[in-house]
Each structure stands twice: as structure tokens, then as C-alpha cells.
């Protein structure tokens, strides 16, 4: 997990977070505090709860117990779209029916940003990940590495408080 050095970056705090799926204990009473703008990696054998912890921070799972804070605000029960957190998925999860440009622009369009600003920011982000001028392609026409970079651009363009890499 990492937090991008950007002015928006916020502290992430987990307090005694627990997650149970039925009988299985996925995350058992984890507490940690991550400084704004720092880059932190969770290491461990498969099945130890890394992904679940990330998903709890993103809001894709709700903790069975404990509290989650982003900055000073408690977000334990907030839905994912009300947190300022983006996540890069193992499978990249590019929208297959949208072009590369529209994939990156998706979040900005949801926030109803003006068209000119959307264009400018998306172009900048594509430039940053080394894929200028490839906006009109379909995600299926890209190599695995290119797909990964598009997914990164799609997360970065939102300037999130926290950026998660699964």
C-alpha cells in the first residue's frame, strides 16, 4: 500500500480492525497508523488478509469490528464513493466498453468537472504514465503493462487522499 506525495494526502488510521467472513477470521484486530504521503507495503503469505485490509480502507468491505479513520474523519461505515480513496485492482479492472481516454476520465465525469478541465487532466495523466495519444484505443487492444499504466492514470487523476495498490 502506498500514499502518493501530493498535497491532498491524508493519514490512515486503523483501530482494532477485525473482519470475519462467517466462521473465518480474515483480519484479526489490526491497528496501524500511516503518515500522510508515506509509502507503506503490507507483506505476508497469501491468505493472511492483505487484500481484505486494503478493501476495508477503500470501503469495499465493512469491518466487523474496530474503526477506520482517513485524516481526522471516521469512515468506518461510509460507502466507497464517499471516501477519497482510489484503488488499483489486481486485474486492473479497466471498463471494456469505454476507450482508454474515457476510462481515465470516468471519475472526473462522475464529479461533473467541466469538459475542458477533464481533457487537460486526462491528457496530462496519460503523458505521465508514458501513453500520450493512445486515448482512443480500446483497453482490449493494449498489452498487460499498458493496461496497468492506464489503471494507474485512472487512479492518479482523482488526486486521492489515499492510493491503494492490490
Amino acid at each position: 500500500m502506498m500514499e502518493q506525495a501530493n498535497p491532498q494526502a491524508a493519514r490512515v488510521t486503523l483501530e482494532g480492525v477485525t473482519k470475519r467472513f462467517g466462521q473465518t477470521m480474515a483480519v484479526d484486530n489490526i491497528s496501524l497508523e500511516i503518515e500522510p504521503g508515506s509509502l507503506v507495503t503490507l507483506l505476508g503469505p497469501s491468505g493472511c488478509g492483505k487484500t481484505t485490509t486494503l478493501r476495508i480502507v477503500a470501503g469495499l468491505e465493512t469491518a466487523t469490528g474496530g474503526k477506520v479513520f482517513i485524516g481526522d474523519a471516521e469512515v468506518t461505515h461510509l460507502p466507497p464513493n464517499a471516501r477519497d480513496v482510489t484503488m488499483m485492482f489486481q486485474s486492473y479492472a479497466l471498463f471494456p466498453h469505454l476507450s482508454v481516454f474515457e476510462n481515465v476520465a470516468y471519475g472526473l465525469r462522475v464529479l461533473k468537472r467541466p469538459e475542458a478541465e477533464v481533457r487537460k487532466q486526462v491528457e496530462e495523466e496519460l503523458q505521465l504514465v508514458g501513453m500520450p495519444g493512445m486515448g482512443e484505443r480500446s483497453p482490449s487492444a493494449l498489452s498487460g503493462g499498458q493496461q496497468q499504466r492506464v489503471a494507474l492514470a485512472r487512479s492518479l487523476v482523482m488526486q486521492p487522499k489515499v492510493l491503494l495498490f492490490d
Partner: protein
Amino acid sequence: MLVIAARNPACLLGGLILLVTTTLVPFLSRQGQVLPIGRADLALTPLALAGQYPGFYLLIGLAVAWVALGLLRQDRPDRPALWGGLLGCLLVIWLTVTAGVKPYAFGLGSILALTICLLVLAYGLSQRGYIRADTFVAASILLLGFFVLLFIIYPILAVLQHSVMDSRGALQPGLFLETLRGYKSFWRVLGDSLGLAVFVGVVSTLIGLAFALAATRSRSRLTVLLRAFSLLPMITPPFVVGLAIILLFGLQGLITGTLLGLKTRGVFGFPGVALAQTLSFAPVAFLVIASVVESVNPALEEASLTLRAGPWVTFWKVTLPLLRPGVANAFLLTIVESLADFGNPIILGGEFEVLSTEIYFAIIGRFDKTLAASLGIVLLAASLATFLLQQYWLGERSYVTVTGKPPSGQPMPLPRGLEIGLLGFCVAWCVFTLALYVFVVYGGFVEIWGINNAFTLRHYRQLLRDGMDALNTTLILAGVSAPLTAVVGILTAYLVVRHRFPGRGVLEFTSMLSFAVPGTVIGIGYILAFNQPPLYLTGGAAILVISFVFRNMPVGIRSGVAALAQIDKALEEASVTLRASFATTLRRIVLPLIRPAIISALVFSFVRAVTAISAVVFLVSAKWQLSTKVILDQAENGRYGLATAYSTVLIVIMAAAVVLMYLLVGKTAVRGGVEGGGLA
């Protein structure tokens, strides 16, 4: 603006709308006239009714309290929404039940008030974290749950209730058994229904198995013909097969009467019904088994071949045993279909009586609600038992390996002799089926079948004169219900597959349940439940649309579930972490990706609405008459010319709809829809 400045916008907005509703909108209506029509209706607003029913003051009080709380600062804004919403829902239901007495029934106001309270409750639930998502998802769950309770569970409970309630409304637990004991032919009818169902189940499954093997494992080009055959029951109005059998084997039948010179009514009864049901349900068995044959991993057969087993031994020892769950599945499904079938026994049964037709005659002929309800319970128990067996016993026993990895290798061709035998049988069966359709079309152009075979357009002229009203009604109501069915079905599929919430299993189970409840049972359930205030719906168009929507809901659910299973959940998760709400995600990510499933759900719910008979036969009225009921009336009076002409028109419309869909989305969607549909 005021709303934006509010501390608790959901409560403020809900409170304001509720305040307007309670002062201006009539809460009740004159039996069934839901839309207010005149000044007199203003006497039915909650404010006006409060003098007589003080409970309405509570509702108005709730509206005022929400407005006030909406403007105040609160630590926990979810509380007034949650508890107020819950209280409001219960209040509206209670007030509708107490104040909705003859001649008044529920009205626009009660619908609006309930919707507002449900929405505010949904907001409270989602803010509190009880439903893991936003207000849109919570509201959809509450609304769907409410509809399922009202239009699937409640009518079934009404049937149960009437089987143990005497004419004065007193509860008599022994009445059910007493009614059945007093009904002399009960054991014969029950035995005949079950015997017919098992017979049709065995024969249809064998034919379906033959078709499935021939269509998926033969290298012949004829397989295209066999595949097309699978579509026939979808575009077939309920009486077509029955009418064709009468035209061929009836008193004036082409084969029995004209060719063999027999004057026999022998086809009416078990032989006719069994033949008609086998013709109708074998294609369903075919589809179920074919999907299993296609998913058998070729590596298993290849392994057998490399272990020195020949094609015949491999077929007997490996292929067939692997198909066992699919075959059992098809067998149980055709039993459920046969039990539920109404169209074939009603026109071919003669003296041969089954439960579904006896229920109809108990209501239509004897006006005996208790008998109809009691027989309904028996029929329901038989179908449900079979359905549950299929869901739970077989649901676990699939040998199909679902890995998402495309299977490697070619499926083994059938042994040569078997392939020729199966193909020969299937082609003969197809030719026979097609001949039936040809004779139905032909029958519409003949003066009086078997007596005066002169060509005529008389029936079509009569159709244009007398039948257009019912045809228009049918197409309009089916057209209105199709998008509603697709929305309800696909939304249910989305919620059940993608969200975790309390009661999810119950919602999934009950919505699929309506698939297994025989149409006649739902039909009497609707009559019994919606024939008096506060829920007065019979005699109108709304009850027909509602019955279409909730009978056909599983069609939408099945196409939706199948389509959603193909979509990586991470796409939606990516969308919500990019700040999109669940509603936006549904609209911009999910719906575009499952477009074929939506179109197939639309078309098949339209087709099923047009061909529905078993439930709607109880619900049609002089003003809202449906085509299938007209065909039934004509056929019962022996006017086969008009009945076949009418059926032909319906077949053409259905075929056009399916072809249109095929052009729009391709064949995968067509097959998914057929598997989701088909029940009478």
C-alpha cells in the same frame, strides 16, 4: 436553497413531500380508481379524513416532525430517518387497512406516502450501515421486498387462508380436509394429474435427451434444424398444439376422420393431453440437457478412449453417467410444467380432469372459493415439492466443472449407429411438429374443418371485426409490462448477485418461487387477495400488468444473473472507488455491459405476457380482454376456424419479436431467455 442549508436533507425533503401529500392528495380512492377524478376526492385527503380516523394526525405529525428535524443540527441524522421511516410505513399500511373500507380502497395518496416513508427509511438504513451501500441500493431492496411480499407471498397466503375459512369468514382448520373429502373425484383427479405429469416427464426427457445428443454431438448440418426447434415453445400461444391435435385426430380430424373414416373422440382425454404436453415440453428438456452436454469436459472422454475403451463403451460408461444430473433436472422441470399446464388440458381434456382445470371450474363454474383454494393448495404442494427437490437435491450434484478456463479438445462424436438413429428420430419429430403448425395456419383458411374444406377468409374478416380489441389490449399490456418486468428482474439479479444484505436469500428464493407456483394458483390468489378493499384491483388493467410482471420476473432474473456472472466484480468496485454512486455505476458500467441480457429479458417477458393464459384467465374482464382468453372461448365452443386464425396472428407477432431480438443481440441471448422461460 432551503434544502441545501438543511442539516438533515433526507428528513426535510421527505417531510415536505409528505406534508403536501397528506394535505392535498386523496389518500383513498373509489374502488380501483387510483387516479383522483374530481373535487369529491379532496374529501379523501388525510387532513380531511383525520376527523373520522385520528390516526391520520400521527402521519401529518410525522411530516411536521421531519421538517423540523431536517432544519436542526443533529449528531445522528440517521435516527429520525430510520425510526420515522419505519413508523411511517407501518402507519400508512395500518391507515390504509382501517380506513380503506367499501366503497373506498387504497389511492394515490397511500401509494405516495408509503413510497416516501420507504425512501426515507432506506436513507436511514444505508447511513446506519445496515445495508452496505447507498440509499439507491437500500431503497431498491426495500421496494422489491415490499412488492414480492405483496404480489407473490400475500396472494399465496390468501389461497391458504380461504382453504380454512368458511363463507362467513370464520377460521376452521378442519375445513380444508372436509372440503377435499366432500369433493368426490379428488383422488381420481390427483392421481390423474400426477400420473400425467410423470408420464410426460419421462417421455419429454427421453426426447429431450435424444435431441440434446443429436444437436450437440452430431457433425450433420441438420443440427441447425434441431436448434431452431428449441425456439418453438417460446413463440407458441398456449392452444396451438392442442388445436392442431384436434384438427388431425379429433372428431373431424384429418387423420382419424377423413383418412381413416373413424368417428372418434378418443383423442380427448389422456392421449391428447399427454401428446400435446410432450410436444410442448420436450424442447424445454432439450435445452436443459443440451447445456449439460456442452459443458462436459472432453478430456474425460478422451481419457476413456486412451484407456482402451471404444466409442460405445465410453458413451455408456462416461458420457451418459455425466449427464445424469441434467437428465434428472429436465425430468423434474417437465413435471412442474405439466402440473402447472392449463391450456392443453382445458381444450383436450374432455372427461379427463386435472387439478389446474378443476380449480378453474371450481371458480368459474361453481363459484366455490373454498374448493378452488383447497385444490390450489394441493397443486401448489405438488409443484413446490418437485421444485424444491430440483433446487436443493440436484442443485448440489452437478458434475460440470466451472473453472472459467475454456475446455480443450474436441467433444467425442457419437458412435455411428447411435448418431444415425437419433438423427432419424429427431428429424421425424421435427417434421411432425412443423406439420402441426402448418395445419394450424391452414385451419384458419377453411370454412369448417373436415366438413366443408372450401377456402375462405371469413375467419380473418371476423377477427378484424371482433378480435382487434382483445389483440390491442394484449399487445399494449404486454408492451407496458415488458420493460417493468425487465427492470424488476434485472434489478433483483443485480442486488442478489452483487450485494450482501439481511434477507438476501429470502428475496432470491421468493422471486424464483413465483416460477414454480402454478399459474392457476396465482390466478385464484390474485382474485382472493385483490378483490376487496383496501387492495381493490380486480377488473382493471393494473392487475393484469402486475400478474405479468411478477409471473415473468424469473425470466429477467435468470438472464441478469447469467450476464452478471460474466462481469468481473472489480469493474464495479473500481467505479465506486472513483467516486461514482451505486446508481451511477449501475447505469454507466453494469447496464451497458449486460445489454444483451436486458434485450432478451424485454423480448421474452413480452412474449410470455402475450402467450400467458393460466393466471390471467381469472383476471380478465369485459373491458380488459386478452387474446388467449378469446382463443379459449372460441375453441371451447368448437369454432376452430376463428381460434386457429387468431393463433396464427399471435405466432406471427411472436416470431417477429424473437427475430428482431436475434438481429439485435445474437443467439446467446436467445438461448438464455428460453431457458429462463416456458412455464405455463
